[in-house]
Each structure stands twice: as C-alpha cells, then as structure tokens.
C-alpha cells in the first residue's frame, strides 16, 4: 500500500507569478479558487499554459507548434487507415502592400479578420493554424478528394467577399491563394514532404495570378467497399468447408 499522500509541494513555495501573469493576460483566472485543492489548481495552471503554448496570440488560432503536432497525428493515421486527409496552405495576397500602405495595425486587423473567417469556414474536426506571417494552414481529416478543390474554392471566395474595416472611412478587401495536397495514403511518409507538396501548389496558385486554389490530387489508392466485397467473396466458402492440410501436401502452385 502506498503511504497516505502528503503534499510534496507547498503552493506558496512555487514562483507562479510569471505563469499567473501570462494567464491573466490571456483573460484566464490565474488565482486559486476557493473550492480548489492545490493539486487541482496546479493542474489547471499547467493545462492553461499548455493551451497557451499552442495558440497564436494575434489571431487566437493554433500556432505552428499546434499545427505540426496535428499534422504528425494525421500522417500516422493516414498511413494505417488510408483515410483522405487534405492539407491546405493559404497565403494572403499582397499582404506587404497592406502593411506598407495602411500600417501594421491595419495589417494585424486583416490577419485577425481572415483568421476568424477561416475558422468559420471549416468543421470542428478541422485544424486551422497560423503557419507564420500572413500564411495559414488548414488540416481537413476525412475530406474526400472529390470535394477538395470545391472546398478550397469556397474558402477562397468567402475570404474574397470579406470587407475589412480599418477605419470609419476605409474598408479593405483582401484575397488569398491556396495550395493543397492530400496525405499519401497507406504510406509511411513525412510531414515535411506533405507540406512541400502543398507549398508547391501554393506556389502554382501564386504564379498563376493569385486569388485562386490549386490542389495536388492524390493517386487513387483507396480500396472501395466494392473491391473489398469481391476480394473476400472466397472467405465465406473457406469458412464453410474448413479442413486442415496434411503434412505431405503443403505446396500448391499454379503455373503462370
């Protein structure tokens, strides 16, 4: 039996000022609540810090760390399940001009509005992250190749239709270019290769004149239910007539 648990850590001994300040700044309660045990409080602080470490402070989207963790998980899943997962890389067109003409505060506002718009364009299971600068990434699990381009187009159109007010007299319109690639199904691959393929498509969209979406369509690798049905039609027969092989009759070869 374990000895009765005595707390090894006394809360007053811990220097939690920086953590508290970070959480307070993010609008989270940073002080122990009355009904909270020290363990519960610490757990809450740690959880909140973890959450904070995955968030982009400007837009509230997932940050690059969050994005990479999500992408790693997806590539593992795809290698085993053959599920269709789409990665979109999105880049605001001529963003430098916005910053140069209207100032960085206006640029930040455009980033926030577009981030909010992107998050509203997708399902709760999808991951929207700020990849860096004016670049965003979206991971869409279980997105059939048939719908990939239509979906990217819908996102592009929605953003193009936005009007971003940056002063009482002035609203900006911004467009985005989108590049997308499906994870290679059934393949033990790397997130770097996947990002590279999506990036190539983004480059294509940019070179073709921006404000458009290009998708790297996957090779058709999935095994459909129909194929599986035919593949296993012999199993029913096999199971109906079980018999064990004798030791002398182990080889069976069909000549080509």
């Amino acid at each position, binding site marked *: 039996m374990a000895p009765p648990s005595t707390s090894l850590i006394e809360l007053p001994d811990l220097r939690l000022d920086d953590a508290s300040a970070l959480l307070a700044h993010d609008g989270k309660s940073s002080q122990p609540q009355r009904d909270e045990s020290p363990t519960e409080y610490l757990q809450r602080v740690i959880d909140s810090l973890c959450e904070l470490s995955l968030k982009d402070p400007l837009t509230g989207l997932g940050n690059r760390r969050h994005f990479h963790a999500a992408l790693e998980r997806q590539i593992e899943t795809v290698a085993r399940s053959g599920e269709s997962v789409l990665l979109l890389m999105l880049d605001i067109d001529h963003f430098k001009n916005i910053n140069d003409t209207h100032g960085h505060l206006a640029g930040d506002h455009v980033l926030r509005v577009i981030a909010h718009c992107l998050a509203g364009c997708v399902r709760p299971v999808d991951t929207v992250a700020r990849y860096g*600068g004016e*670049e965003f990434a979206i991971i869409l699990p279980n997105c059939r190749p048939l719908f990939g381009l239509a979906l990217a187009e819908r996102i592009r159109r929605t953003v193009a239709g936005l009007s971003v007010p940056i002063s009482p007299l002035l609203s900006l319109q911004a467009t985005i270019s989108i590049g997308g690639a499906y994870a290679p199904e059934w393949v033990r691959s790397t997130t770097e290769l996947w990002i590279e393929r999506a990036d190539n498509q983004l480059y294509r969209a940019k070179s073709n004149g921006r404000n458009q979406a290009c998708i790297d369509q996957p*090779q058709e690798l999935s095994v*459909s239910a129909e194929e599986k049905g*035919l593949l296993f039609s012999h199993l029913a027969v096999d199971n109906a007539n079980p018999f064990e092989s004798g030791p002398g009759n182990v*080889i069976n070869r069909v000549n*080509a």
Partner: protein
Amino acid sequence: MNDVLTPPTQNPDAAQVPLKPLGKVLAVTSGKGGVGKTFVSANLAAALAKRGHKVLVLDADLGLANLDVVLNLYPKITLHDVFTGKARLDEAILPAPGGFSVLLAGSGMVEYSRLTSEVRNEFLRVMNSLVPNYDVVILDTGAGISDVVLFAVSLASEVLMVATPEPTSLTDAYATIKVLVGQQQRQVIRVIINQATRPGSGAAITNQLQQVLDRFVVTGLNQPIRLVHLGDIPVDPEVRQAIMRRQLMMQATPGCPAGMALTQLARNLEDSVIPRAA
C-alpha cells in the same frame, strides 16, 4: 513578409522516377508489416544458396527490417558506414548462416528512412556494384508504399509480394499492387502466401486478387497486370521455434513443411525467373 514566393526547393533526384530494373534483383515486399517478409527473404536466400546460387540479401528497409534479428547478426560495419563513406562496400558484406551473403543497414540508417537524393544515389551506387557479383540479390523492403520502398522495388526485376490469408493483409497487398501497377508499370507480380492454412488456398487467394484487379484497375498498358502465384508457406510450428531460437529455419529444420515449401519456392523461381545454377 515578401509576397512573391520563391519556388520551393525542388529535388529532381528525389523524384520517384521508375528506373530500368536491374537483372536478377528480387524485391520481397508486402502491403502490411508482420506478414513474414524478412523470414521469406532470409530463408528463400538460404534455399537458393543450397541449390547452388550465389545470393545476397540487402536490408532495403534501411534499418527498419529485422534481418539482423532473424539472422542473429550484429555487425560493427553496416550499410550506414558505406553510405557515410566510413567503410568500403565489401567490408559491410557478411556471410550469413545459410550460405548466403548479407548487407545489413544498421540502426543508424533510420535517419535515411526518407528518400533523399543522397539516399537514392548511394543506394544506386551500392546496387550497381553488388548486382554483377551475385546470381541473385534479394531486397528485403519495408511494408506498404513509402518512398524508400517504392524506390527499392523500382530497382528490382521481380516483385515478390508476401501476404497472409487475413483480410487486412490482403487488402493492403491489393492496395500496394495497385500502386505498383500505376506507378511502376509492373506487368507481373509474384505472390507468396505465408501462413497458409490449407492447400490450394494461396492459389485461390491469388486468383481472387487477380479478379479484383482485372475488374477495378485499368492499367493503360497493352498487357494488364498479371499475378503469378509463386507458392504457399504453410503454418508450421517449426517456423515459430526457429524464430524464437534466433535460428534460420532453413538451417535448423530444412525438412519441415515450411522448409520444403521454401525449397519449392526456390525451384519455382528457377523455372520462371532465374537460371538454374550450373
């Protein structure tokens, strides 16, 4: 940030361009892991060696194969040292129990599990030096269709697809065959059914796979993909025994049902792919 993107660095060398296959190179592959690829590679090598062929087995899964475990060999010099220029190729080739040679990748190779132009070029260099010196080179590849697997398979003159009769194994084998047909324009793939539970089941399974391919896979080639059933390896307690004892089955109990099956597989290869040893 600059809006004008520079083109992402392209590496034409790392592209998966199917190469002209080299002679007498057999790639042993599977759709799913754990179906006995390495067991087949090592024991088929021993069976061929016994029949007079000069055989080399290469760990083409670059350190992720269990060839070292199956053969109970843990060399100081591996393919990794050859790739990094620390050793000559002939220093890394070892005699394996069973009378064949082996080139192990070593655990340091895991960093090479991604196909870069460096890996590709080194791999090609090694293969070009090896092939003229052996009657048969067997590539023990990884499962599935990762870049490295597809590249290794593209170097082979023959593909031996190992599968067990389980539905998951067959589904993955089928998916992999589809890729090999589409990407490498393979016209013949030889199927080995491991852990076969009844005589004739391997032929029936191969036939079934062929039917599904004929119906669903359009190759765009003059000749459609043809699966050739190379043989079955029956469920055999001696296989497990040998693996647990870290012995090569073809050496420990060559007369057991699985051993006889592997000898027959070697004979079947002689009839179809490789010339009989002098």
